[in-house]
């Protein structure tokens, strides 16, 4: 940990020293033309700081940051795997970084070949060969997928389908997507083994069912044991099956969603395919579909005729959903990642991610309470914190905050919603055994502290620049507009 990590870093405004400047521009050698008075503002209270102060400010902030390059980032359902640096080399190649989105296609055949081949790879990995690379993130991929399903029903003149079935363990984006596409959401219950309750599903499926949306493995980190039967029930009623591919990391190279009966699926390139999340760059959520749904995909698709690549508009496209060609550099990173593994080794991603999750679960399961203890988990697992709350008065938020004190990023908490006091852990395949051992040791130590010194957890974190934040006050009385303090000008005072 950095020597500055525990010191609060003042805002640049608070470091402002009137008279300090970052740059001194040379005297103008052209006639001075003042801005019109109505465009001039006197009330812009900008910080006055030297260049070196700005650099040190942001460097200090970056040293307080936590990232996958520092250690385990076990956010459940987020697949925060290490992002190989080879990906970054690939996007720096001039042909990738300097290509202009408005270049004529005949001058951009190389990048179009990359896009075409990525379409092919994702089609093969998913078993669903009609692919669009356009969606800018997983949630947009979901919306595209559901709009494609809607277009499919409407083209057949089947206008009575108004509902989408969604299990109660689903990612929140699934119901949001369905509602945004104009569907009514019908919730399907989970059973005690963490599968969909088939009787509940049968009672809710009907000729109004446009689709079912679900994740496999689901958000409990469990493989849906009745996946084929679920898909058959929905297909028999005339509905389609949408797969939320957020958890593809657990099955890549081993099971293909298309073979399991899914009709449409998206994949988050920033999860399974090692593209950085958030601040590391934009996301990307390609959609893969059955061949007969290709005509509805968003425009454009990259096609290949002979040796020539072209942008094509599918005949009954739902339209354009993203400017230009998707988040292209995210595509380059994913392409590089797939090629660096190769067809034969992709399945090791799934094997090791599942092994790591089960190893970590085995280390902590005697002290924490797995939600479905009798089952082997996939790439992530879910712990139920109800007993800690009851016996020690310590809730899952307290446990998560204490994890920060041990130098780790906390897991996802309070999701999925069907598990009370939920702690959801996804280590990914990019953790060594030593790293998993260290993280498990911290979890066990925290469980001991919960029993012997609950107050330590209530006030955690302790080893950070700021300690427990009042998230309730922040939510009840949000301050949406930062107002910088007025810094007195020392020169005038002197």
């Amino acid at each position, binding site marked *: 940990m950095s020597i500055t990590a525990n010191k609060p870093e003042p805002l640049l405004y608070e470091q402002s020293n009137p008279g300090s400047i970052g740059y001194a521009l040379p005297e103008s050698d052209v006639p001075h033309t003042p801005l019109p008075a109505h465009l001039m503002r006197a009330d812009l209270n900008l910080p006055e700081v030297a260049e070196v102060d700005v650099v040190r400010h942001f460097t200090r902030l970056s040293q307080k940051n936590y990232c996958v390059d520092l250690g385990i980032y076990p956010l459940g359902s987020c697949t925060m795997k290490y992002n190989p640096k080879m990906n970054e080399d690939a996007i720096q190649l001039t042909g990738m970084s300097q290509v202009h989105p408005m270049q004529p296609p005949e001058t951009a055949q190389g990048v179009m070949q990359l896009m075409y081949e990525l379409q092919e790879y994702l089609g093969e990995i998913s078993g669903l060969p009609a692919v669009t690379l356009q969606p800018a993130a997983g949630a947009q991929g979901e919306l595209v997928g559901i709009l494609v399903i809607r277009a499919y029903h409407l083209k057949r003149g089947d206008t009575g389908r108004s509902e989408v079935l969604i299990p109660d363990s689903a990612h929140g984006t699934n119901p949001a997507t369905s509602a945004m596409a104009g569907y009514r959401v019908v919730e399907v219950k989970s059973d005690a083994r963490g599968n969909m309750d088939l009787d509940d599903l049968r009672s809710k499926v009907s000729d109004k069912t446009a689709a079912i949306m679900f994740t496999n493995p689901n958000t409990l980190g469990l493989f849906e044991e009745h996946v084929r039967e679920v898909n058959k029930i929905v297909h028999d009623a005339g509905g389609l099956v949408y797969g939320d591919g957020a958890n593809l990391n657990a099955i890549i190279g081993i099971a293909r969603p298309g073979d399991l009966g899914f009709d449409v699926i998206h994949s988050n390139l920033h999860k399974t395919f090692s593209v950085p999340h958030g601040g590391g760059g934009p996301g990307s959520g390609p959609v893969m579909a059955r061949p007969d749904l290709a005509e509805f995909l968003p425009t454009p698709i990259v096609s290949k005729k002979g040796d020539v690549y072209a942008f094509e508009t599918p005949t009954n496209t739902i339209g354009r959903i993203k400017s230009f060609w998707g988040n292209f550099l995210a595509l380059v990173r994913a392409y590089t990642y797939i090629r660096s593994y190769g067809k034969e080794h992709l399945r090791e991603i799934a094997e090791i991610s599942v092994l790591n999750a089960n190893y970590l679960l085995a280390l902590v399961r005697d002290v924490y309470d797995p939600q479905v203890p009798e089952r082997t988990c996939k790439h992530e697992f879910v712990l139920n914190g109800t007993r800690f*709350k009851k016996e020690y*008065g310590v*809730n899952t938020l307290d446990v998560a905050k204490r994890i920060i004190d041990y130098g780790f990023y906390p897991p996802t908490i*309070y999701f999925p919603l069907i598990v009370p006091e939920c702690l959801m852990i996804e280590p990914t395949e990019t953790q060594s055994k030593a790293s998993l051992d260290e993280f498990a040791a911290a979890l066990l130590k925290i469980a001991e502290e919960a029993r012997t010194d609950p107050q330590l957890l209530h006030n955690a974190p302790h080893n950070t620049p700021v300690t427990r934040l009042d998230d309730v006050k922040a939510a009840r009385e949000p301050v949406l507009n930062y107002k910088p303090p007025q810094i007195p000008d020392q020169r005038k005072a002197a």
Partner: protein
Amino acid sequence: MSSGKEISYPTDLKYAATHEWVRVEGDTATVGISDYAQDALGDIVFVELPVVGMELRAKSGFGVVESVKAASDVFMPVGGSISATNDELANAPETVNADAFGAGWMIKISPFNADDLAKLMDAATYKSKIESGEIH
């Protein structure tokens, strides 16, 4: 945060599996969320309520309760016409945590469909279903 307090289940109320309670006085049904629900949600930061005069059927959503953990729909335990809403909750959503069965009430329904009452649980049934994990 857990208060460590016993969860209370007043016996003069009826409960829905989605954790709303109903108190019947004459032709008016007063509705809120249970002590178990407020404890599970944690600190409540926002309550969205319907406009007075709306007609809603049983099990349809009448509002949203948002805590720092999650936003949850709240459902009509009985159908009928919204005759009043607890506007105090706009400024003091924490009242639902502090007094779920009293000052933390959310809506009054009048008239309400008395037939819907039969589908609700008494306190003992509601409590046992929570403790057995049948509802959560």
